[in-house]
């Protein structure tokens, strides 16, 4: 696969340089420059929110640093978790005196490094953890705590970020983040692979006429692979799977994110959205704040994911609260 890059080893750092040069609201910081923070720094008296993850998913993770969203984000190499030093830096730089929520996707490396970072800082900074676990294809419902975090984590960013801006305390911000995670479900489909810079091969192979349902954001195997079907059939199956796992206490309002994985045109995302919106309406659900676009990508992978965030009154209010980052503006 062809890429616009220089040396593969420079891929992440040069992308971060460009990201911060183009967006003065973001600053590179930390010992190895692997933390993105708000330019104005941590606000005193506000609970901080630190996230982190591997590169290759922009706008996730670093792109969601901003007012009403994240305070800091540690960033690893492509598809690798951030190292322990950058996790420590992200926590310290997010700390405004009232503790820090560690909010990130449920992946082994990310978890180990954020855990170690929290342990190393436990005498200085109180931290809590909420893990994104929205990918319904990555574990059975009875093991939902083992699920991986994918595109739906941006709902937790937005909702917890809005709560933190109200000067809520750490426990309140943690509780709302956990509530946002437990209200969100995602499933993805993949049409074509991506390739890690420097790697000799794509992350997986798939026929030109095939689609894989439930594939993970790094190309982890999904639920089934078959011949490509019409978009409406794909949207129907994705929605059926998501709605079958709706929270027991779900109300009648839902936000939907139709997300592109990197190489899929917006037109195709809107074709999916059109059908999904129709289906949600028929299911008696009212759509609030729909999102369609490339919010969480996987390099040049072709495909899409659909996330549903089942809203209660507080989640709905916080989702609508003002927020700004280079890739998402609300209000």
């Amino acid at each position, binding site marked *: 696969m062809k890429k616009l890059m220089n040396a593969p080893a420079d891929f992440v750092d040069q992308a971060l340089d460009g990201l911060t040069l183009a967006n003065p609201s973001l600053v590179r910081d930390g010992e190895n420059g692997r933390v993105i923070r708000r330019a104005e720094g941590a606000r005193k008296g506000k609970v901080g929110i630190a996230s982190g993850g591997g590169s290759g998913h922009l706008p996730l993770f670093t792109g969601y640093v901003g007012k009403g969203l994240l305070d800091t984000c540690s960033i*690893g*190499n492509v598809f690798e*978790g951030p*190292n322990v030093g950058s996790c420590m830096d992200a926590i310290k730089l997010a700390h405004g005196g009232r503790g820090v929520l560690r909010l990130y996707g449920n992946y082994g490396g*990310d978890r180990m*490094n954020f855990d*170690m970072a929290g342990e190393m800082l436990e005498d200085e900074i109180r931290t809590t953890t909420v893990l994104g676990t929205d990918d319904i294809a990555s574990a059975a419902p009875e093991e939902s705590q083992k699920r991986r975090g994918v595109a739906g984590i941006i709902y937790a960013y937005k909702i917890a970020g809005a709560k933190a801006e109200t000067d809520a305390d750490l426990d309140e911000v943690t509780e709302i983040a956990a509530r946002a995670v437990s209200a969100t479900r995602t499933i993805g489909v993949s049409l074509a692979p991506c390739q890690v810079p420097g790697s000799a091969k794509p992350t997986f192979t798939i026929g030109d006429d095939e689609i894989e349902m439930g594939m993970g954001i790094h*190309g*982890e*195997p999904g639920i089934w692979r078959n011949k490509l079907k019409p978009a409406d059939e794909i949207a129907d199956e994705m929605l059926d799977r998501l709605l079958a796992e709706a929270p027991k206490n779900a109300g009648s309002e839902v936000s939907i994110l139709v997300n592109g994985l990197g190489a899929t045109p917006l037109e195709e995302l809107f074709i999916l959205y059109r059908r999904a919106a129709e289906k949600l309406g028929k299911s008696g659900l009212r759509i609030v704040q729909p999102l369609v676009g490339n919010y969480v990508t996987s390099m040049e992978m072709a495909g899409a994911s659909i996330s549903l965030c089942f809203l209660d009154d507080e989640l709905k209010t916080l989702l609508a609260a003002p927020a700004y980052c280079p890739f998402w503006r609300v209000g």
Partner: protein
Amino acid sequence: MSDFGINEVKWAATVSARAMVGLEQELNDADAKLGDGDTGGMLARVIGALDGATIAADADLGAAFSTYARAAATATGSSLGTLFATALMTFAKETKGRSSAPITELGPMLGKARDTMMARGGAKLGDKTVLDGLDAVAAALEGISGGSDARNKAAAAALVALDEYRGKPNKIGRARMFADATIGMDDPGMLAFAKLCGALAQD
């Protein structure tokens, strides 16, 4: 040789880094069947960082392992790489203040590393991970006091474990979702460990 010191540790890093040149794609391919296909590239970078790390002239064995642990932890945040750094940190604690250690301690040291890695990562023995290879090698090194003997026994034990677990399902990580389909496949962490043990025995 009945002891090992900094020179042996440096040698092991150099041999492993050299071996990774040929292993990188093989490990990426093995990982692509179960996960995201980056194990080879990640390990090549981490072991390269170890090989390139500068050990202070007055460092003891513990300080050398500590330098390697920091180099590994800085080079990656991946789960396997972080577990590798955790093992190196365990070695650093076990050898702190000593210029060398008896080879008879290698088995118990690997056993402690296995336990700290289990505590950090959450995997159990039998899940078909690098821990199962490590466990087999720790047992094989019990009472072994010669360097060459230890390397041969480690390589053989890691290979036996790899062969034994190939016919079992992966029980942790994303691969557990299609566990039956993983029967017949090598776990990439176990494969890497066996191949590197083999490289150390052959050199």
